């Protein structure tokens, strides 16, 4: 067990032979499956993606970076995919499951080439992939053109409304319990430090909207270019604005220097974070007490005290000891597989149109490591529990309820998308497989309040 992926780091084109001792049997079945689909192809030329007789292998594809800047994140997602498939004994509906993985290495052109390849040549039944929104937007036109069932499962600002895309991760709008908590417990005035690109600025719009709803407002906002690691003047500006708390939307390790510099400058203001701890575990990479009094709200943290989660964490870490912290991206990839499994079992087939209908049935709900995760039929986004993590002086995490008391429960259960997005995006009622909606909605100034 624990055999690492065999995806070729440099060539990025070797399909994954999924480790372990069952290889020879699987290789045989894969060959048989190959023959099957070749026969199918000649009979049904042009009808890609849904050629399936019942004894045929089910093919699952992943496109996660295994090298480049986010290589470690993608390795985690592929590792947990392997772990999930081993738990299922590489079987679904009593049929063999084959995993096909490529490494797009963070390059959007590679993402496009490999998306084409994995859909058209490997003919996957389900495609999981993309880390950044830019990767996803590079893939989506090809996914849509080929009517390919697709899962995106890494945290983003929200807004994709697409017939073929199913999304489970923390959305910026789902972090609203944190905004409410900070305003109630620390005060209405906050200072926002925002990574200056799509994710940061759009998330900041959501934050401002919810802050207004809960009676707060920004007393200062600084938009910081990605890669900036110098915050002397920002800290000065914060001290001048004298906020009750700081909203953190910093992205990437350079911007995280802010916390170290704020600590060194003696800045003692609590952080309400929409971008730290769960995904990038600053409480593990910085020495205490730099992250003290960070309040971070996400659907998953490694520290979630449920038995289900602790077993999951223990198992993953023992099989993949390279990972010191089980971060959000890993668990979202796992949950995406759980949701797919449930949808296929409900549909009784891997026919993509029928699985999509199952996803939209309203009956898809799984017990993920983070808690109950359900698929919302209209928006194709996950409805899930949100946890509020508090980082203390020794960088330990406790979970809090709305009053700030320690708890073993999420701060808010079954949180859906924003009302605005739910009213814009109605896939189940307005979109069909043959006449699909494939949009991304970005809130304009004022949209959210209507």
């Amino acid at each position, binding site marked *: 067990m624990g055999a690492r992926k065999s995806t070729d780091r440099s060539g990025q084109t070797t399909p994954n032979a999924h480790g372990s001792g069952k290889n020879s049997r699987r290789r045989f079945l894969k060959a048989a499956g190959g023959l099957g689909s070749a026969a199918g192809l000649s009979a049904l030329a042009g009808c890609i993606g849904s050629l399936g007789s019942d004894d045929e292998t089910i093919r699952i594809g992943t496109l996660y970076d295994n090298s480049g800047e*986010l290589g470690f994140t993608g390795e985690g997602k592929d590792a947990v995919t392997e772990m999930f498939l081993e738990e299922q004994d590489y079987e679904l509906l009593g049929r063999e499951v084959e995993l096909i993985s490529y490494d797009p290495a963070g390059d959007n052109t590679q993402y496009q080439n490999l998306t084409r390849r994995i859909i058209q040549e490997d003919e996957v039944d389900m495609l999981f992939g993309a880390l950044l929104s830019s990767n996803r937007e590079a893939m989506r036109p090809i996914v849509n053109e080929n009517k390919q069932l697709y899962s995106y499962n890494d945290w983003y600002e929200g807004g994709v409304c697409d017939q073929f895309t199913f999304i489970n991760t923390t959305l910026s709008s789902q972090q609203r319990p944190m905004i409410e908590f900070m305003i109630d417990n620390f005060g209405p005035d906050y200072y926002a430090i925002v990574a200056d690109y799509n994710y940061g600025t759009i998330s900041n719009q959501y934050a401002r909207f919810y802050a207004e709803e809960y009676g707060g407002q920004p007393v200062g906002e600084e938009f*910081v270019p990605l890669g900036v690691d110098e915050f002397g003047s920002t800290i*000065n500006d914060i001290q*001048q604005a004298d906020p009750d708390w700081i909203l953190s939307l910093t992205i990437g*390790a*350079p911007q995280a220097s802010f916390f170290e510099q704020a600590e060194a400058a*003696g800045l003692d203001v609590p952080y309400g974070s929409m971008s730290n701890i769960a995904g990038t575990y600053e409480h593990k990479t910085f020495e205490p007490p730099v992250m003290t009094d960070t309040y971070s709200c996400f659907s998953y943290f490694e520290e979630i005290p449920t038995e289900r989660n602790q077993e999951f964490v223990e198992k993953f870490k023992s099989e993949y000891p390279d990972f010191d912290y089980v971060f959000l991206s890993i668990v979202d990839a796992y949950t995406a597989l759980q949701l797919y499994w449930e949808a296929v079992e409900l549909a009784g087939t891997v026919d993509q149109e029928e699985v999509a209908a199952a996803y939209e049935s309203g009956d898809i709900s799984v017990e993920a490591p983070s808690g109950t995760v359900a698929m919302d039929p209209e928006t194709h986004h996950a409805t899930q529990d949100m946890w509020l993590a508090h980082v203390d002086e020794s960088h330990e995490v406790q979970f809090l309820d709305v009053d700030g008391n320690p708890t073993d429960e999420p701060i808010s259960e079954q949180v859906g998308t924003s009302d605005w997005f739910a009213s814009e995006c109605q896939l189940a009622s307005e979109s069909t497989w043959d006449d699909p909606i494939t949009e991304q909605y970005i809130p304009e100034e004022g949209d959210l309040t209507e």
Partner: protein
Amino acid sequence: MSLIESLFGFLILALSHFGKLALIALGLAVIFGIMGIINFAHGEFILVGAYTTAMGYHAGFPLLLAIFVGGLAAGIFGLIVERLIIQHLYDRLIETLVATWGVSLIVIQLVRIQFGGTFAGIHTPLGSIQYGAFSASTYRIALAGAAIVLFASTYAIFMYTRYGLHSRAAMQNKEMAQCLGIPTKRVYMKTFFFGSVLSGIAGGLIAPTVSLTPDMGTNVLVEAFVTVIVGGANVIVGTSLAALSLGIIQAPASMLFGTLGGYLALLITTVLLIRVLPEGLTGVVE
């Protein structure tokens, strides 16, 4: 914000900008000034210094000793690069540029594969100083002092040692120096080592203030180059004056227009300065 507080804030910001710019530019200035090599891997020497310092620190060394080890590690790394690559490319400006860029890419990838996206940092020492309703990191101000010490030591080495004499001779007229029996190749090797040590020490010194990532070198490279270009050919006077004036310009701009404004002011000043003073501040001084 009262006038006194603003003045204090400005002074502290200007000092910390000066300190950082001066530190990260010095090694680059030495190698460029003496050898005429544009070292695109400069940022990675800073990276090697910073990572080694962090490793030493986490292994229990006192910070100053860890920084010293970081400088030494960068020096040894520089020596290897010089022996394997640079020495074959002397007097070939474009080739060294491409070769050092290649070294930079290789180091970044190796660090990423070996250590992942981030590396456990060092806690900023020395606490903070308070002025009115404001406070700032003492260490950032100490960095300016460290920069002055490093510049003074570099000056002393160039003025009062045999190596310094040889290197100045090689810089002024390489052929004549060779005729007089100065082993210029050896001088170049020593200079590359010396410049690398300076970069490594700079990396160690700034390590407690930033996140340690494989591309931290790329992030500082632009600022280092800008400082060296504004400074011009005179390694000590030009570079330190450049760091000082850029720091004095960057500080109020970032106070008024935010971090991005500060960077823009830095770059716009550079563009204007090299238009007006093609030889950099060195031209004015001389």
